[in-house]
């Protein structure tokens, strides 16, 4: 290897090391800066500037001993520079030299002092700001992954199968909206907290689900997104440890993620829960999920929607074989879920549980009621479940029609193949 080769390799290594530092530090950096400059968009720009400085300097100087502090100090200097520039402009316009200068010095002192405080509160403020209800769900997701997950615009675009400029624009607009609506950089209090927290949880679960059951595209799962959502969930659980629903959501995601390896066959096809090889479930994640569920339960009160869904997932996780599943308890939990968060999809799941606990006829009765539900028109799982129950009752001709209908409704290629296979199997059994 020549000296030039080795130098290129060192530079590439440093770049990868900087990526890693960015992954670890960016959210805290942006959060700390946002508290100082009171503008999330500006805070991110300052953090990006610091990253660019690191990319320029670290390959020569090496990664500093405390890279987070280096990035913060660099961004802080940029913030002060900007402030001074702005003040100079103001002074030109206003001719109020003395007063503006005092104000500037106070601001600089504030920036200097603000750095070493506990960063946890800032991170929480950033979470609530990125998931603010003034933003569309897509914007919340993009901003959360960008500001808190440390993902690049390109990574977000690839994860959601949309063009990069679309994501970039979404983020720019979101930042603009936050500034225009003067969304304060703070943690909501009192009654507002519950509603705002549920907006945050919704964003995390949306990210997780996009990774877990990709709504579009050729892959059945995009595990990196699941991992991002889990990481953010675990961070949030540390930031607000007394909120049961946060632990509920973490429990739900941990337990669902524990099945990742088992729910994809060798050629990438989906494998349904009851047909999965349970030995391939990740026991470490199951243990973590059950522990998180226990934390949610210990905080007292009735479980919320995420806690209940986690409790249902836990019933499956505890059963070593499908036959050991406590379907009656699952049906009861779906009933409770239906009361606090009524939705036709929950009812559909309750129908499945009833069918497992008390026979396919019991489930089909509820499913038949749901076929009139406007919200479920076009939802592929309704005919898919109905087909399954009909097949179990030996009504194969009707079952086949339902599977075919379900196949025509799903947007996921892998799922379509599975449904068509089931439809074909009904035809064979019929003959």
């Amino acid at each position, binding site marked *: 290897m020549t000296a030039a080769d080795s130098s290129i390799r060192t530079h590439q290594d440093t770049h*990868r*090391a900087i*990526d*890693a*530092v960015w*992954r*670890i530090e960016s959210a805290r950096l942006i959060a700390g800066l946002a508290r100082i400059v009171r503008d999330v968009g500006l805070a991110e720009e300052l953090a990006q500037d610091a990253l660019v400085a690191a990319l320029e300097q670290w390959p020569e100087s090496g990664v500093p001993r405390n*890279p987070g502090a280096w990035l913060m100090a660099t961004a802080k200097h940029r913030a002060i520079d900007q402030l001074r520039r702005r003040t100079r402009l103001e002074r030109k316009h206003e001719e109020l030299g003395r007063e503006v200068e005092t104000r500037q010095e106070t601001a600089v002192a504030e920036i200097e002092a603000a750095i070493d405080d506990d960063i*946890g509160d800032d991170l929480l403020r950033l979470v609530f700001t990125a998931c603010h209800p003034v933003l569309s769900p897509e914007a919340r997701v993009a901003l959360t992954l960008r500001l808190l997950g440390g993902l690049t615009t390109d990574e977000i675009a690839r994860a959601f199968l949309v063009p990069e400029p679309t994501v970039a624009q979404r983020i720019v607009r979101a930042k603009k909206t936050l500034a225009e609506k003067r969304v304060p950089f703070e943690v909501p209090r009192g009654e507002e907290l519950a509603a705002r927290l549920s907006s945050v949880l919704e964003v995390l679960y949306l990210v997780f689900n996009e990774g877990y059951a990709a709504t579009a595209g050729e892959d059945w799962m995009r595990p*990196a997104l699941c*991992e991002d959502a*889990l*990481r*953010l*969930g*675990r*961070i949030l659980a*540390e930031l607000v440890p007394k909120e049961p629903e946060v632990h509920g959501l973490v429990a739900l995601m941990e337990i669902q993620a524990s099945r990742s*390896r088992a729910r994809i066959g*060798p050629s990438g096809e989906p494998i349904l829960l009851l047909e999965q*090889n*349970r*030995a*391939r*479930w990740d*026991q*470490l994640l199951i*243990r*973590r999920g059950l522990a998180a569920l226990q934390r949610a339960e210990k905080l007292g009160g009735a479980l919320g929607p995420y806690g209940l869904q986690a409790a249902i997932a836990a019933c499956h996780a505890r059963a*070593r*074989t499908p036959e050991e599943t406590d379907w009656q308890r699952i049906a009861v939990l779906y009933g409770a879920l239906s009361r606090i968060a009524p939705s036709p999809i929950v009812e559909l799941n309750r129908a499945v549980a009833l069918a497992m606990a008390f026979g396919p006829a019991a489930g089909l009765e509820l499913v038949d009621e749901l076929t009139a539900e406007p919200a479920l028109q076009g939802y592929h799982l309704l005919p898919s479940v109905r087909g399954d129950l009909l097949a179990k009752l030996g009504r194969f001709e009707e079952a086949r029609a339902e599977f075919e209908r379900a196949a025509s409704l799903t947007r996921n290629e892998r799922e379509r193949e599975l449904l068509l296979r089931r439809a074909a199997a009904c035809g064979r059994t019929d003959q």
Partner: protein
Amino acid sequence: MRFMMLMIPKGYETAAPGTVPDAAAVAAMMKYNESLQKAGVLLALDGLHPPSTGARVTFPGGKPKVTDGPFAEAKEVLGGYWMIQVKSREEAIEWASRCPASENEIIEVRQVQEMSDFPPDVQEAAAGFAEMQMKSGHSPGA
């Protein structure tokens, strides 16, 4: 990706039974563990008793032979581990670099194998093994 950060404290190979780190070192390590937890990357961690209370099972000629600790010939022994979930090898190394370890400690960073890392025939063999475990009523790690 999952990584193990394996802690190898020099001198642990001959440490007396019941040897534990002092309170200051434990406090510093707790702070580090907390930072891993708060960053959402920590999956599991454990510390190990010194090898003086352990044993090694070797297989000379294919037959198990038990040697009680300490192991005079061992140069490096494990003191504990962290299991973390990160995006890259570099991120794992960065986390390891932040450990408040002392001069006589080494952290070895190793990626955890996933089933998808194996060629198909090994995967198949492993799947059969997993099923066997299920039938005998044991699930791994439970």
